[in-house]
């Protein structure tokens, strides 16, 4: 029997409906009737079901990440949303406008830490207990450094006390199942926000030969002189 376009379309729809788990008893009856005259119908159905299974498997794995993405709190979301806007605007703004925005950006980043911290298990700097949780049983000025985490915890604790370290905002770059078969191996950037006071600030511009040269930025608005 020759398969007409109408038959083909009807068969395609029935095959799709069955493969997608939406077929009723009537659909099966219709499919059986068509298949009686179209031997390839069963082959098509088997292939469609196989495609649906494989694709669902891959999509399911890809969407697994969705289950771990929670909503941020309102304050954090507002700050992050504003930061996103700033980032878009900044590429068109003069350097000083960007510099003035840094205060807002730092606040947003600190809030982002709380948001992302849940996801990556990052220690909140404000609540950092210190290296290896041993500060209560050993002299306060003694910090055993036995591993990178201890060293980093010491840096964070002392940095926070001195006011230099503001927040940490990790970015996950890559992940894969661990070769041991347990857990995952992750590659991430530890972005640590620091605050510092410097005597001079330079920005780069270009000279006549188009070579980058640093130019000292003068301090804007000197309140003491203005008064």
């Amino acid at each position, binding site marked *: 029997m020759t*398969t007409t*376009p109408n038959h*083909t*379309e*009807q*068969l*395609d*729809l*029935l*095959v*799709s*409906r069955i*493969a*997608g788990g*939406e*077929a*009723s008893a*009537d659909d099966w009856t*219709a499919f059986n009737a068509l298949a009686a005259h*179209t*031997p*390839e119908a069963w*082959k*098509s159905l088997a*292939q*469609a079901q*196989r*495609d*649906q299974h*494989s*694709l*669902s*498997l*891959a*999509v*399911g794995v*890809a*969407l697994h*990440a*969705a289950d771990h*993405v*929670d*909503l*941020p*709190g*309102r304050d*954090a*979301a*507002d700050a*992050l*949303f504003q930061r*996103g806007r700033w980032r878009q605007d900044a590429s068109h703004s003069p350097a000083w406008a960007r510099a003035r925005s840094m205060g807002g950006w730092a606040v947003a980043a600190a809030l982002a830490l709380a948001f992302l911290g849940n996801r990556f298990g990052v220690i909140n700097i404000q609540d950092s207990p210190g290296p290896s949780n041993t500060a209560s049983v050993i002299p306060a000025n003694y910090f055993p450094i036995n591993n990178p985490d201890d060293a980093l915890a010491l840096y964070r604790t002392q940095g926070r006390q001195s006011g230099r370290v503001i927040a940490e905002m990790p*970015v996950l*770059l*890559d*992940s*894969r*199942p661990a070769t041991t078969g347990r857990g995952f191996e992750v*590659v991430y*950037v530890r972005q640590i926000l620091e605050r510092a006071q410097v005597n001079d600030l330079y920005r780069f511009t270009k000279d006549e030969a188009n070579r980058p040269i640093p130019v000292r930025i003068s301090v804007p608005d000197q309140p003491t002189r203005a008064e």
Partner: protein
Amino acid sequence: MNDPAGPPAAPTADGAGTGDQSLVREAIRGDEESLRELWNRHRRWVAAVLLAHMPRDAELDDLLQEVAVAVVAKISGLREEAAFKPWLRAVALSIAKTSARRRTVRKAGWFRLVGFAGARADERAHDHASPAMREGRRLMDLSAELPDGYREPLLLKCIHDMSYKQIGDVMGLPDTTIETRIARARKMLRERALAAGLGPESPGRGRAGPSDSQHESSRA
């Protein structure tokens, strides 16, 4: 032809949309618990929408984080409770299109900076995946070649229990249109899979030669 052969399948009564409207109302008023509940109900299909529209080398979880932030920041501006799903989809589409490239570039920059020589996680995981998973990944890649409007419903249909009706609610289209698009998407995908050497040779169904492909394209 927009009518499928026979009546469309009845939407599954799986409760995915039950009680949404009151939750949306409360969420608009600022109730964080309601919004959280809504997010938990819908984030999987939001992720599928992102998956369908984001560039191939973008990171899904990054984009979903951005959608989460935008949802919290903008929910108070939603005017119609019934428009929640299309609104949520519009937020996801906007972020998929505007943010993906920037993030990918930034991550690539980090990798260059630190001299990270590893391949992408999913490419490496390819080596250890089951044959069905490898085939599924190939099909997912090939689905990127489908015409606009076909990939999204096909991927949404891969989410367990998502019916034609529910997909139609999300995309703002009748369920009959969704069903027709999914059926055509399956067929086009199979043709591309065959051309790519994936699966058994010649399914034989419908003599799927060039004329059929043209037929599909003209109807798209």
